[in-house]
């Protein structure tokens, strides 16, 4: 494609503005710049329509390495700057990229790095668990933390206020009535109309980044599989891909195909559950019952074939931990045929139901511009015209052996997110069949090589919620120095604050469900 070498042109443009050091690590393009140019780079990048994809920091000796990951046309650039650890600060990119907002606040809370000019300098991941000037991701902070008993409640977070006649506030959560994760939503409303919604997350902060330090690859893969329970395959794969990159090993073809099958099975299971849950939130219980049943049957096959309903720990560094016998392949194919038939029937019922249509169409509208500005991913982005799917645009094994049809809708409403999910299920079913057909005898696991101290890897895979970015740096002796997983929810959550505007309060739950962000994946 003609646009494939935008990086070269862009590098020339950027170099006239600042000094850029080009470093090659594994397969990632790494540009290092001075910290004062951090914001300037973002300004240049946004002019070229680069997407801000991830941001994280790490401490090495007396220095902080600050990273930001950009993407365009499926090509990634890792931007890095190094600052001194005494009075660490640098210009914010969040002024240019709203997507970087929470990520920079996360870094600020956990490292104590100040982002100058940040539009919202309130704490984010930091609730009341750490005393002031105590930054848990710094190396001098003990791995087991400094437990002070029960964390006190986070009472005085400065929420945005609204004033005026008839304006009132609705606090919802963090504990909800359903069996879902904790998160707080603060509404400002007039009558039933939502004026503003503010999310307050961080209640499921588990210290994933900290407890990853010092782990061996096997153990890290298990941890990555628990970043967000519903995306265990996605995160595990991304982390393993990063580690394999750092170690410089290739996984066997058979392992790659099985990984593809696992990831697509995870996608199907979650989309089935989501479609049902969206209908349940508008009190159309029939759909939820049917789709929960289909999902359950699907998960039972997972248990029979792979030994775990949610496929945890099936992906390991260097390959996969489970094999597919020909009997299992037949079972899976048989399952797919049945699911296709049943799903077609159920979807027809939903499609023809006018009361459902009335609820789902036009509600929760997310415009293409906002979706692009926040860098929304997966079905949320694709329902608002963001035509991006790693499986097609930056294919990794095994997706480089197939053509992936990307489901795209442009209406940006709940119905669009519903239909993108349905189309993705159909694509995923075809992909699984395709992968099974291509399975040839071979190894399941490559030989692990201990990576050199300081070697890095960036694993990028298309999870069921969208692009997952996983960064890993190794220490000496096969130990992990830094692990940062960027769940797609981190970029999708802010879109929820925008898409509920002009909706009424009782429509919020279905708007939220149509986006279905992960709390755990966001909070880390």
């Amino acid at each position, binding site marked *: 494609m003609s646009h494939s070498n935008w990086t070269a042109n862009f590098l020339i443009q950027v170099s006239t503005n600042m000094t850029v050091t080009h470093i090659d690590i594994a397969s990632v393009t790494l540009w290092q710049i001075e910290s004062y140019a951090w914001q300037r780079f973002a300004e240049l990048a946004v002019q070229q329509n680069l997407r801000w994809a991830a941001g994280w920091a790490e401490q090495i000796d007396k220095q902080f390495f600050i990273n930001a990951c950009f993407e365009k046309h499926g090509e990634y650039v890792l931007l890095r700057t190094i600052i001194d650890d005494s009075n660490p600060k640098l210009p914010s990119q969040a002024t240019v990229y709203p997507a970087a907002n929470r990520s920079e606040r996360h870094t600020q809370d956990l490292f104590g790095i100040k982002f100058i000019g940040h539009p919202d300098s309130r704490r984010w991941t930091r609730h009341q668990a750490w005393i002031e000037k105590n930054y848990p991701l710094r190396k001098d902070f003990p791995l087991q933390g400094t437990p002070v008993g029960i964390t006190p409640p986070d009472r005085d977070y400065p929420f945005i206020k609204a004033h005026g006649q008839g304006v009132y506030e*609705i606090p919802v959560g963090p504990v909800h*009535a*359903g069996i879902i994760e904790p998160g707080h939503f603060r509404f400002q409303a007039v009558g039933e109309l939502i004026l503003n919604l503010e999310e307050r997350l961080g209640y499921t902060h588990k210290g994933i980044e900290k407890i990853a330090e010092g782990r061996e690859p096997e153990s890290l893969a298990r941890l990555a599989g628990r970043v967000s329970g519903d995306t265990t395959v996605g995160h595990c794969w991304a982390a393993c891909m990063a580690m394999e990159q750092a170690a410089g090993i290739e996984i066997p073809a058979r392992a790659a195909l099985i990984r593809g099958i696992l990831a697509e099975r995870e996608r199907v299971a979650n989309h089935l559950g989501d479609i049902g849950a969206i209908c349940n*939130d*508008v009190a159309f*219980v029939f759909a939820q019952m049917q789709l929960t*049943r289909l999902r359950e049957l699907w998960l039972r096959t997972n248990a029979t074939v792979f030994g775990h309903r949610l496929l945890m720990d099936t992906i390991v560094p260097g390959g996969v931990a489970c094999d597919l016998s020909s009997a299992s392949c037949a079972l899976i194919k048989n399952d797919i045929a049945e699911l296709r038939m049943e799903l077609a029937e159920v979807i027809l019922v939903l499609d023809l*139901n006018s009361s459902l249509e009335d*609820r789902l169409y036009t509600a929760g509208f997310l415009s293409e511009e906002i979706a692009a500005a926040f860098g929304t991913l997966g079905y949320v982005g694709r329902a608002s015209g963001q035509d991006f799917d790693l499986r097609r645009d930056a294919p990794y094994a095994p997706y480089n052996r197939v053509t992936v049809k990307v489901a795209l809708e442009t209406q940006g409403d709940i119905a669009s997110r519903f239909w993108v999910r349905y189309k993705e299920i159909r694509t995923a079913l075809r992909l699984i069949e395709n992968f099974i057909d291509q399975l040839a005898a071979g190894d399941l696991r490559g030989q692990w090589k201990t990576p050199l101290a300081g070697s890095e890897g960036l694993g990028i895979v298309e999870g069921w919620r969208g692009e997952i970015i996983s960064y890993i740096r190794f220490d000496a002796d096969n130990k992990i120095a830094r692990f940062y997983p960027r769940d797609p929810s981190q970029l999708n959550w802010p879109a929820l604050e925008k898409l509920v505007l002009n909706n009424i309060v009782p429509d919020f739950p279905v708007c939220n469900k149509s986006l279905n962000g992960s709390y755990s994946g966001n909070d880390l």
Partner: protein
Amino acid sequence: MNWLIAVLQTTLFVILAPLLAGWVKCCKCRLQNRKAPSVFQPYRDLLKLTYKQPVVSEQASWLFIKAPYIIFSATVLAATVVPLIAVDLPTSATADVIVMVGFFAFARFFLALAGLDVGTAFGGMGSSREMTISSLAEPAMLMAIFTLTMAASTTNLSFAIAHVLNEGLVLRPSFVFALAALILVAIAETGRIPVDNPATHLELTMIHEAMILEYSGRHLALIEWASQLKLMLYGVLIANIFFPWGIAETLSLEAFGYGLLAIMGKLAVLAMFLAIAETLVAKMRLFRVQEYLSFAYLLGLLGMLSHIILEASR
């Protein structure tokens, strides 16, 4: 003796209400391809709740604690007005339909106050929504009822039913309109889909449930029981006014038995229709409820007009 029967009839109302709720749930479960809980499950739930200690917010006033008793009593009083198995009881002198609507409004008033009392956002939201809906539902309901009472020339339910029985099976356009209007109002007033969802856990979408979120223990049991009673009241109202056949006109044991069987049969069929309707449609957007209730009002009005134009001259 007659008073005893009247008391017994009300007791029957109170006792059978959870059974009806259980039956609706059972029908819904079957329609969703699920195994249904026993039809007696609502009794067990009520019993369980009465064993539990109610938890009351520190901010709650006396009103919050008294409200469940007031709501339950008012609903029971409304039940005394509606003929269940027999028409010619001593309570029929007071069996005025406007009295019944008044009792409902009384109960609702206290429910809405209780929702506001503890000062949670959900309670206030629920109360506000409930009052909006009821201000639209009550006129529609009265309009439907007036159509009937014009035909019978009385607002007394007992006499109206007796009138319909005497007339025999006549197809009246006004009754068809009034029936449709009353069904729509009943769905809104009892908080069923598509107006409200009694089974939801999503606080922000609730109407009735949002007001009672803070209730627990025996307080909750009373409110739950009252809403089950209300569902049954509307069911009986529809069943006995439009299809009164089978109701006991003489005070004999045989007639009562027959009347009881008839009303249970009618309610069972009505409940099945309710379950089917709830399975077929999603909940409507909150701001569609006014259109829905305006439509009910319009039907009531059409019923009255068609009575005046087509039936009154005869």
